[in-house]
């Protein structure tokens, strides 16, 4: 049994942290979302649902939100398609190269997000590496514009940035698949492919779910990649929030959008956690 003092000593700091840095800010945000901006850019505390109504009335917000969800979905799918085979190879077949390859996956995480964003700008731009290369090979004759400042560029950049986040939980779950189950499956007459489908894949589902959740949630809230490489057609919902809290000076509307996003993300996390529990044995 731990003493009462010890229990307080370990529970109070995190509780304080959560209260001061999470609960109180969210409460403030919550209040703001029901206020309005009066002329002369004054925020007045007259409680109403105007902001939430506007979210659904103004098609811009819904369009951008849907686009953000589509981009997040695409990035999640790509990150899974890249991350899973990589994790599978590392866990089951890399043997001596395992540590080296693992480090190679992790090292990009140490580079600043901005650096990686700008790198893609350099690669995709009209006088960038990719266009130069294509023209050099005479595949194209003038710079291809849609590489940069497009949802495509955003998806590419975010996939690059968030694939390691998808890879890590998948790798961890694959490492936890008992190898004797794989042997047992072979022993019982299942081919390597069948073993993958019937044993390895089901047992790595928690990792897939965790990885997909990471990629989706992080992408959905991202505003730097669209800012750097997205252009007008690549704008995402967080860019709107940023501008509402910035130049547009409409904190109440920004707060309303933020809270909707928060609700979306929290329900997503809740759902995937329940699913993960279901698949974890």
């Amino acid at each position, binding site marked *: 049994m731990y003493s009462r003092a010890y229990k307080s000593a370990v529970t109070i700091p995190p509780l304080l942290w959560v209260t001061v840095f999470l609960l109180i800010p969210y409460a403030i945000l919550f209040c703001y979302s029901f206020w309005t901006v009066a002329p002369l850019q004054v925020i007045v505390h007259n409680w109403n649902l105007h902001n939430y109504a506007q979210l659904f009335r103004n098609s811009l917000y819904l369009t951008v939100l849907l686009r953000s969800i589509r981009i997040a979905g695409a990035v999640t799918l790509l990150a899974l398609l890249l991350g899973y085979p990589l994790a599978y190879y590392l866990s089951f077949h890399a043997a001596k190269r395992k540590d080296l390859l693992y480090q190679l996956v992790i090292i990009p995480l140490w580079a600043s997000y901005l650096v990686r964003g700008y790198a893609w700008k350099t690669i995709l731009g009209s006088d960038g590496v990719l266009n130069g290369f294509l023209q050099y090979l005479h595949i194209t004759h003038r710079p291809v514009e849609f590489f940069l400042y497009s949802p495509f560029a955003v998806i590419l950049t975010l996939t690059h940035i968030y694939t390691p986040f998808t890879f890590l939980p998948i790798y961890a779950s694959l490492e936890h698949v008992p190898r004797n189950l794989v*042997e*047992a*499956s*072979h022993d*019982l007459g299942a081919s*390597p492919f069948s073993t993958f489908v019937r044993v390895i894949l089901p047992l790595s589902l928690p990792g897939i779910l965790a990885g997909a959740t990471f990629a989706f949630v992080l992408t959905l809230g991202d505003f730097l990649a669209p800012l750097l490489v997205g252009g007008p057609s690549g704008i995402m919902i967080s860019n709107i929030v940023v501008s509402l809290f910035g130049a547009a000076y409409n904190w109440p509307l920004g707060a309303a959008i933020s809270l909707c996003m928060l609700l979306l993300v929290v329900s997503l996390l809740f759902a995937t956690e329940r699913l993960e529990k279901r698949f974890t044995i």
Partner: protein
Amino acid sequence: MNASGSPVPVERGPVEVLLSIQKVEKQFAGRPVLCGISLDVASGEFLTILGESGSGKTTLLRLIAGFEHLDSGEIRMAGERLDQIPAHRREVNTVFQSYAIFPHLSVFENVAYGLRAKSVARAEIPPRVTQALAMVKMSEFSQSAPSRLSGGQQQRVALARALVNRPRVLLLDEPLSALDANLRRQMQVELKSLQREVGITFIFVTHDQEEAMALSDRVALLRAGRLEQVAEPREIYGQPATAYAAQFIGQTNLLRAEVRDGIANAGPMAWPSAGPSGAATFSLRPEAIRLSSAPQGARPAGGTAHFHGRVQNQTFGGAMDLVEIDCGNSHILRARIPSPGPLVGQQEFEFAASDAVRVREGGGS
């Protein structure tokens, strides 16, 4: 095996070699694990590979299952090369030491796994699974999740999962080692009767010599990657080929003797021995030594050796007492004597010369 569960006697006709292991070699990172193993396993036989940990017994099993590739030599099943076929196409199933039950599948689906993998007709699967579960008395757990089962129950599921495929050879890798003593004895009995019932060849790996003796038709004693002796339990106990075999299987006294003119001399005792002259080692089981009724004098007469020694220690053991006899010159013999009553001081002992079995020293290594 039939549906009503009554055992069908297995006809033991002329011995037919099912599995033939020829000069198998295996190294791990340059370290030899198996050195020239040759072993024939008869159809319907219960063969135990017995050895200490690190003797290579599990490696041999894994080679037969197809989880390892051999460096040289060959393994044949019914005359055909087995070692070049991938594990999933071998008519061999394994019961793993840690059971390796699929945690995400129900007991039923675990047992059905092999049938589904081999595309057995859909309609045939439920009756076969049901029958296999009945065979190991696990019918009521058909829909349970494996995580809810005890070790012994998982063990049974693993057995059913392997046997349902009707393999030609069933490999068992120390399947009972994780069970507690009582359950273990019970499972031994069941395993043996199950094997008789299904008539499948069992290759059983264990480090427990008592288990090996209780279960097997034959025991293959493995030591540091070499076969020390392959024989029926009674023979390996009664006529151990090497000093190692004698010591590993049951308890024994090793007598270092000098054989000359048909008489073996070991310190205070002597007995007739037909073998060639020179230094020799004999194994004498503790129960072969008995209290002597004959008069004094260590004479190799009538095929009986007499000797006297001081009783150093006597441990009551129910039917048999363990007696430590000091014969001088730090010669300590252990004897198991049926209810002798308290023994003190110098006593006369004897044993039949035929019980002193000449064994090879050194053996495999």
